[in-house]
């Protein structure tokens, strides 16, 4: 993010903030939808994060740290929405299928997709967040640690745990399918 834009928005320039928000909104919505697996919740989280950025921007000491700081506010908004999700909407709507990549035909398998979706939903927001930031947003583990304010070792162990859980979800499905085929 352009540091000059950040400084202008810090001083209350709404035009500068509007430019910043227009740059951020699609990326934030994409990441939060992947974490929360629900478009409405993701929109709410993105909206809350952008408003929190506007509200708290004067407290950001170093404009160069805007990117990590803004992601932190987004993650916090996702946590808040995730908490509300647990409390108020135990039966989530299934997110519309994302467009499959041609090279990944196996992902087009409805069974695999459902298992991956179910496995991901069983993860805590903590674990979903590290997977999305690391594997989707392509952040190195050190940067994820910086964004979340936790040790790199904790990020690593969360990624490891989350991937193991996702593998288990797929392998459980594979076992079920082979058992049914054997009958």
């Amino acid at each position, binding site marked *: 993010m352009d540091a000059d834009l950040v400084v202008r928005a810090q001083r209350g320039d709404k035009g500068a903030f509007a430019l910043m928000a227009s740059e951020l909104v699609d990326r934030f919505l994409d990441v939060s939808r*992947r974490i929360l697996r629900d478009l409405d919740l993701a929109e709410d989280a993105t909206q809350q994060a*952008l408003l929190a950025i506007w509200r708290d921007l004067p*407290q950001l000491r170093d404009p160069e740290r805007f990117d990590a700081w803004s992601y932190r506010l987004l993650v*916090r908004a996702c946590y808040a929405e995730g908490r509300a999700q647990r409390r108020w909407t135990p039966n989530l709507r299934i997110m519309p299928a994302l467009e499959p990549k041609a090279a990944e035909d196996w*992902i087009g398998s409805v069974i695999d997709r459902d298992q991956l979706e179910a496995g991901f939903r069983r993860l805590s927001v903590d674990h979903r967040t590290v997977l999305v930031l690391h594997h989707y947003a392509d952040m190195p583990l050190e940067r994820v640690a910086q964004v979340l304010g936790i040790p790199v070792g904790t990020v690593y162990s969360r990624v490891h745990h989350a991937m193991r859980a*996702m593998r288990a979800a797929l392998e459980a499905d594979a076992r079920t399918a082979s058992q049914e085929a054997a009958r």
Partner: protein
Amino acid sequence: MSRRPDPDQLVLAWLREPARVEGGRVLVRVLEQLDSTPQRGVSWTARRTLLSRRGVRIAIAAAAVLVLAIVGASILPRIGGFGPPEPTPTPSPRPLIVDFLAAGSYTLSPFGPPLDDVTFTFDVPEGWEGYEVGLFQATGWERPDGSGIAFQVIERLYSDPCHAEGRGDVDVGPTVDDLVSAFQAQDAYTTTAPTDIAVDGYPGTQINLLMPEVDLRTCDGLNFIIWEGGPTAQGGNRWQLRIIDVGAIRPVVVVAQDYEGTPAVDREEMHSIVNSIQIDT
């Protein structure tokens, strides 16, 4: 039939699937709310309390005496060739940072002169975020389910917290009892009966405040501020105030705040942090 790929490849491919998202609707909603969303120059925990100039002079004189006493006490045993054995080093607590906090022990000296020697040390579990003068659950301190802790010094209250611009109109005396009496005399919020407590061996009094349901849009600056330099309260906010006499010119106050909707686990974490507080002066 093609062979099923490695599960890790499947997971990564699924995670990385491109998506079409259109944030235009969110952007419009955000920009529509800018006018009703004031920027925060200072957060509820970010204000530092400044004491009176007279208080500063008194405290500087007292601090000078204290420094001389400490220096003398540390030198004399060495001159005499005796003294207690050196303590075994232990991991040092880290200074509190304005950021997400890793679990561990932290120190904070939240006050300006003459109370800048007052240092709090406390244990923080994972999931908390630090501010200049306190910390709160990383999910937020706001209603309906937030929680947080702040370290404060209180000189003046506002009799009308909804219109709390400028100086507080209720002067508070320098003792724990003075502050307790000042709170009890207010009718803008509910106070509980005070109880005697001790924090890390320092005597004090606990009094709890329950904030009324208030439409902050009717308040100056959208704030409901109980004391000068203090945090903004929200409707239904429950504040536990531990007013502690640390032998300084004013008591220090540990504010632990939550809501009826705060999850029990968050509340337990908040109390565990408060119960771990150690004070150095």
